[in-house]
C-alpha cells in the first residue's frame, strides 16, 4: 500500500464548506483506535479515494454505536449511544452509510430505525462488490494471484444479515483460489469475539473459540485467512500466532486485499 496520506474530511468540515458527501464512512471504535484495525480503515479510505467517491467521517462526533453494550444486555447504554449518534447523523441529513465492521453495519441498519435513525447502510464488502460490478473499480490479483485464500464469515454479516457472496466474489476477482472451511456461510463458526466476549475472559472450558476456528482455517494450509470484521481479525490473528503460523498465513481484511493487490 502506498504511504501517501489522503485527506479525510469530517462532516463538520464538509458542512462548513457547503458540501454534501455521497456517503458517510462510519469508522467504528475498532477502526478508529485499534492499531491493527486502523490499517483496514486506511485501506477502505484508499479504495474510496481511488474511485473518487466523495465521503466524510464523523470524526470526534462519532461515538460507539452501542453494539457491545447491547449484546451484553445493557439496553439503556445502547439506546443512549444510539440516540446520541442518531441526533448527530439526522442533524447532518445523512442518507447513506458504509461501515468497516459488521457489528456497526448490523446495528445501524437493523436496530437504529426503531429509534429514529433511518439510513441506507452497507458493509464495505458490499460497497467494493458494487464498485467492481459497476466497473468503477478494476481489480487485479497482484500479490494474491494464485494464492490460496480462505474466507471466514463474520456472524453479523453472514447469518445476521445473509451477506455471504459479496466477500467471496471479491476474493475470486483476485485470481486467487478461494478455499472453504467445512463450517462456512450459514454454518460458519464464530471467531469467539461476538456477544461482548471480546471484552471479557471466556468461561471455563477446554479450548478458546478463536483457536478452534483458526485451527479449522489453518488445516486448509492457506496463504491468507480473509476476514471482513476487525474483531474477527483480532481473534484470527491471535489464533494464527497460537499455532506459530504467522510467517506462512496472513490474516487480512477484504479491503486490505483489494488495496494491496492494486497498490492503492
Amino acid at each position, binding site marked *: 500500500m502506498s504511504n501517501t496520506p489522503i485527506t479525510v474530511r469530517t462532516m463538520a468540515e464538509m458542512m462548513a464548506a457547503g458540501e454534501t458527501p455521497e456517503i458517510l464512512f462510519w469508522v467504528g471504535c475498532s477502526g478508529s483506535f485499534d492499531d491493527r484495525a486502523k490499517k483496514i480503515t486506511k485501506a477502505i479510505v484508499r479504495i474510496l479515494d481511488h474511485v473518487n467517491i466523495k465521503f466524510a467521517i464523523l470524526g470526534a462526533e462519532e461515538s460507539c454505536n452501542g453494539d457491545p453494550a447491547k449484546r451484553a444486555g445493557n439496553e439503556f447504554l445502547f439506546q443512549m449511544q444510539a440516540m446520541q449518534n442518531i441526533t448527530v447523523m439526522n442533524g447532518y441529513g445523512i442518507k447513506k452509510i458504509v461501515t468497516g465492521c459488521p457489528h456497526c453495519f448490523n446495528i445501524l441498519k437493523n*436496530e437504529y430505525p426503531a429509534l429514529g435513525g433511518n439510513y441506507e447502510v452497507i458493509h464495505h464488502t458490499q460497497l467494493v462488490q458494487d464498485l467492481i460490478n459497476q466497473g468503477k473499480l478494476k481489480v487485479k490479483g497482484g500479490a494474491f494471484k494464485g494464492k490460496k485464500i480462505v474466507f471466514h464469515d463474520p456472524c453479523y454479516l453472514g447469518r445476521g*444479515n445473509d451477506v455471504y457472496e459479496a466477500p467471496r466474489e471479491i476474493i475470486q476477482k483476485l485470481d486467487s483460489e478461494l478455499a472453504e472451511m467445512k463450517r462456512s456461510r450459514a454454518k460458519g463458526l464464530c471467531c469467539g469475539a461476538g456477544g461482548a466476549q471480546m471484552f471479557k475472559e471466556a468461561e471455563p*472450558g477446554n479450548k478458546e473459540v478463536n483457536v478452534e476456528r483458526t485451527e479449522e482455517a489453518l488445516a486448509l494450509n492457506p496463504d491468507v485467512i480473509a476476514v471482513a470484521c476487525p474483531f474477527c481479525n483480532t481473534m484470527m490473528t491471535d489464533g494464527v500466532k497460537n499455532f506459530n503460523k504467522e510467517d506462512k498465513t496472513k490474516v487480512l481484511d477484504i479491503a486490505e486485499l483489494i488495496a494491496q493487490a492494486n497498490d492503492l
Partner: protein
Amino acid sequence: MISSVIFAILLIGASVLFTINVRKIRRNILLGRDISLTDNKGDRLRTMLLVAFGQQKMFSKPIPAILHLFLYVAFIITQIELLEIIWDGFTGAHRAFRPALGGFYTFMVSFIEILSVLAFIGTIAFLSRRNLLKVPRLNMKELKGWPMKDANLILLGELSLLCFIFMMNGADEVLYSRGESHAVNTGGNSLGLSISSIIGPALFGNMSHDTLVILERVGWWGHIIMVFAFLNYLPISKHLHIILGFPNTYFSNLRKKGQFTTLESVTDVVAPNFDPAYVAKTDPNNPQRFGVKDVQDLTWKNLLDAYTCTECGRCTSACPQNITGKKLSPRKIMMDTRDRLEEVGKNIDKNKGTFVDDGKSLFDYISTEEIWACNTCNACVQECPVNIDPLAIIMDMRRFLVMEQSQSPNELNMMFTNTENNGAPWQFSPSDRANWTKEN
C-alpha cells in the same frame, strides 16, 4: 357390540384427557408476555410450509433427515388408515373402506405398508444412533435421566405401533387366503397388501384359525391403544414437536437474525432526554421488568419454543461455546425453560388458578455462567429445524442481570463505563477518534 362400546369409551376417554392436557399447555404458553406475530401472513405460511411441512432445515444433515422423513411421511399417511380403524371400531365392521375404495384401497394400504417398513428402518437406526453409536449430540449430560428415557420410549412406542399394524395385516392376509377373514370377500386369495401378503404367510402361515384371529385382534387393538397412549404421552414428552412444529414455524421471527429486539420500556426512559416531545409507548401504570427473570417475563413465543423443542441438539452441536467445552448449551436453555414453565403451571394448578411465589426463577435452572458465555452468533437459531430461538432467552436474561441486578462480569462493567465516558468500549479519548487520519 361390546367391543364397539369399549372402543367408544377408550376414544372418548383419550380425547378428553388429551384436550385437558392441551388446554393446560395452552394456558402455560399464554403466561408469557404478549407479542404480535400476525403480520406478513403470506411469509409466515410459506415459512411453515417449507420448514415444518417440507422439513427444509432438516436436510442440512442429510442422513438423519432422510431417516426422519421416513417416520414423518409414514406418520402423516397412516392417519388415513387410522380413519378406517376408528370407523371399524365404532361400527364393528372389518376393513369397511375396502369394498368401497377397491383398487385404490389396496394401493393406499400397500403404500402405507412400504412407508411403515422405511419408518421401521428409521426407528431402528435412531435407536442405534442414540444407544449404540452414541452420537455425541444425543448423549450430552443435559439428556441424562428422563430426556434419554423419553427419547427411547418414543422410539419403542413407534416400533410397537408398526409391529401391531403388521401383526394385524399379516394375520388378516393369511385368514383371507383361507377364506376366513372378516373382511368382505371380493375374490382372489390375497388382500393384496404389498408387505403383509409376503410377511403374513412367512410368519403366520402355519398357524391355526383361532391363533390367527387372536393375532389379528391383538394387532388391531394394540395399534389403536398405542395411538391413544401416544396422544396422551405427547403433552409430557419432547415428542410434542409433531404438533407444535407447525405453529412454531408459522410464528417464526421473520426479521434478519442480527436484529435484536428493542426494549420500548427502555426507550421510554431514554428518549425524553433527546426529544422533550416524546410520547411514552408503554403503560406507566403497568411498569415492565427490564429483561427476563422468570418464564412469565418471556413472550408466549419463547414459551411455545420451549414446548416445541424436541431436544435434537443441532443447536448445541453448532454452538461455538459448547464445542469448546463451555457449560452453555442452547438445547439446555430450551429444556430448562420448559421445566420451569411446567413447575409454574403445577404451582398454578395447586393454588386454584393463581401463581403463588415459590421463591424460584428461571435462574434456578439456568446459571449466569451459561448466560454470559454466549457469542450471540445465531448458530443455534440457524440450526433449529423448527425455528426455535434460544438466543432470545439468553439475551433477555442478560438484560435482567445487567439492568435489574447490576450483576455483570467486571470486565463488562469496565466496557460499559468506557462506552459511557469515552464513546468507545476501550479507554481512549473521544477527541482522538480521528487521529488515524493524520497517521501514515
